[in-house]
């Protein structure tokens, strides 16, 4: 009985001490971690808007570049990120639209940038994903993302949305190649991009 009491007390004290230490460390590092996560968002927006910057820049500097070049436009339930055309005249004007959704293994967050008239896709960037490296993780590769540049945001039937298709057929103005071996991820990414496109197109077009 006495031995049991000792074990219970011992584990309780140990757990309390561990919890206290971890709470302290968590509190101390939280602001830095939040700044890092926010910087990743800024990097995604800057990248998709083709603003030149160095990915290795520290969080604070990225935030500064973001402040100078991007204007946030609040809509009812949607925030758009517009390139401020003052500093980088050689960069084409564009609007970044956030999209997010569930991937195969975890959440995916990213941005898609559109021409100011919202008819053409300018670029695509992913901020967060948990897909399998080498398979679904290939969504972040240049080869996959580059395909979207210049694609139309509406199909031949005037319905908003893009299509990410398997196979080797000729691609239409709003179609791109899916990733081989990552059908599920491709489909899910298509859905989340289309949801964002529909939202922004129906809100802006009459």
């Amino acid at each position, binding site marked *: 009985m006495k031995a049991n009491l000792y074990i219970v007390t011992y*584990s309780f004290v*140990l757990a309390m001490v561990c919890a206290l*230490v*971890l709470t302290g*460390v968590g509190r101390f*590092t939280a602001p830095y*971690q939040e700044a890092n996560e926010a910087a990743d968002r800024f990097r995604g927006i800057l990248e998709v808007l083709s603003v030149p910057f160095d990915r290795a820049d520290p969080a604070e500097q990225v935030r500064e570049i973001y402040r100078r070049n991007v204007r946030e436009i609040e809509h009812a339930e949607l925030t758009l990120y517009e390139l401020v055309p003052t500093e980088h005249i050689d960069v084409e004007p564009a609007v970044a639209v956030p999209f997010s959704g569930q991937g195969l293994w975890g959440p995916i967050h990213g941005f898609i940038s559109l021409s100011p008239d919202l008819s053409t896709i300018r670029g695509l960037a992913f901020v967060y994903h948990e897909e399998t490296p080498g398979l679904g993780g290939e969504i972040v590769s240049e080869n996959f993302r580059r395909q979207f540049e210049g694609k139309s945001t509406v199909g031949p039937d005037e319905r908003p949305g893009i299509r990410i298709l398997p196979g080797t057929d000729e691609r239409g103005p709003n179609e791109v190649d899916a990733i081989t071996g990552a059908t599920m991820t491709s489909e899910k990414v298509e859905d989340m991009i289309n949801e964002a496109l529909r939202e922004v197109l129906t809100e802006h077009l009459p």
Partner: protein
Amino acid sequence: MTNQTQAGCGPACGPSCGSTGLCGGKGFLTVKDGLLTNNPVWVQILGICSALAVTTRLENSLVMGAAVIFVICMSNLIISLLRNTIPHRIRIIVEVAIIALFVIVCDQVLKAFYWEMSKQLGPYVGLIITNCIVMGRAEAFALQNPPLISVVDGAANGLGYAIILAVIGAFRELAGTGAILGHVILSPEWYTPNQLMILAPGAFFALGALIALVAAVRGGQEQEAGR
């Protein structure tokens, strides 16, 4: 030297060699044990999962190695300090709790101050908790030895792990990208990077070749000692 240690405790003795009177209490032997004679990766074949996963680049390997050294040293220290108070029946739980504490601290600090690296190492920092090397040293050494020598043992074993990671990481980065720490060594003009070495199979080839090489060298010595 190697022959003597092994003749004394026998090849079957394995990881507990470091905890017996033969090696315990002697700093030099403890270090040699962790680095060479009983190297966690190439002799005990522990910690293979992370050794395969994070060694795509030398930098990743170095950070992972440093994290493991930190965790083993600290957990060995604390467990050794508490060794006379820990109730025997729940000692594994206590060990895991203490190891987990330091792993989480490591992970949080990486996330705060080494963000890009933290993203590349992904879940493998957190998985140090389940790294058999850390647990093995706590169970086999720190529970029976005083704090100072336990820290030495932790450092030696962590270093033994880190060195292998660095060797594999350097080899895979060089073969897979033609660079070391991002500096181009093999000019792309005449060397075509073999991307297989960056992918999972490359890790198996590199680690397998390394273990085979060490086994070939040691195998001869062990046979001699056996006679």
